[in-house]
């Protein structure tokens, strides 16, 4: 099968041409956003059913409770069907989607044996994971 995309001259023995990488990245982003939005929607409906009548105000900053701030407790809370943690899990998945995209791109550059871009992409991934896991800047 011949591909009309001329960038496929960049195709490698690994089978991951630039074109194939683009197709996969596109699909990954789409699925990630849809799944995250779905989780947040289900959790959000739960929240409204449970707390819809309660008064709410965001004028004063209090900060979120520990349950909604660390990755482990959010995942744990969501599996215990805590509605707030379920929404937060959706938001967490959303934040993780571009990070997963960078991780996948790194793998593709590694398969293409593109050393320069393996280094460049690793820098981006390390910075993202540092903020995402440690929460420090």
């Amino acid at each position, binding site marked *: 099968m011949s591909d009309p995309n001329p960038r496929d001259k960049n195709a490698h023995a690994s089978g991951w041409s630039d074109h194939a990488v683009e197709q996969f990245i596109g699909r990954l982003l789409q699925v990630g956003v849809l799944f995250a939005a779905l989780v947040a929607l289900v959790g959000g409906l739960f*929240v409204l059913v449970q707390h819809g009548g309660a*008064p709410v105000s965001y004028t004063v900053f209090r900060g979120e409770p520990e349950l909604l701030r660390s990755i482990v407790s959010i995942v744990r809370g969501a599996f215990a069907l805590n509605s707030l943690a379920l929404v937060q899990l959706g938001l967490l998945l959303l934040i993780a989607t*571009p990070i997963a995209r960078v991780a996948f791109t790194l793998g593709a550059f590694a398969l293409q044996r593109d050393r320069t871009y393996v280094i460049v992409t690793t820098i*981006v991934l390390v*910075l*993202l994971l540092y903020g995402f896991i440690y929460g420090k800047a």
Partner: protein
Amino acid sequence: MTTLTFALLIAGGSVTAGMLGALTGLGGGIIVVPMLTLLFHVDLRYAIGASLVSVIATSSGAAAAYVREGYTNVRVGILLEVATTVGALVGAALSGVIPTSALAVLFGCVLLFTAVRSMQPRTEHDVLTTPDKWAARLRLDSTYPTGERMQPYSVQRVPAGFSLMFIAGILSALLGIGSGIIKVLAMDQMMRLPFKVSTTTSNFMIGVTAAASAGVYLHRGYIDPVLSFPVMLGVLAGALLGARILGRANTKLLRQIFTVVVVVMALEMLYKGFTGGL
């Protein structure tokens, strides 16, 4: 106000913001924070957290389509993401020490800049094919579809574009925006990428830039689920709706409406910043 009423009002406003953002091509993120703070009296930190999450959703959703169509320059995107990610982490660190009033003034200035840029006519520059030292070394030159064939182009002034991307990253974290305007400025005007490649590659980078600071803000407790979910789902729905009616809408009129909205918000942000009312 009850949680239900609040969520419905926020969702309605966010759908409008997402739709205007998609139809004008300026992104909805820039008006989400002013809407939340000025209209709904949400604390700036909560507003920034919710806005960043919505920015990730819309940019990743749109990027998914563009990258598959072959417009996005993935190498340019990844390279410049080093600058935007470092900038975003610096911005997230700064946001803890910069007073809210200063952030409001900065936001007002960025809104005014957005209004000015949105009124300027979009001029398509010639596609350059003269080689550049950095672009050659980093293999940034690529091709993009122009309808009948794949048009090759070469990338210019990489260090200048890279530096401006660092600023874009800082502003993204400080203000909870995608900084698409500045990213496009860097790629289109400085690095001379074709306009369509600039806008799609900007979109591709916005999700990563926003994720860098959003991760930090999640740990700091800026991201509230009850506030963020109607914002995120609303902006996403608005953007999808906007993309669907794009061909039929009067974008020139919408652009003028958007500019007026942005100017009003800019003035109010500046006023609140100088009087310390935010």
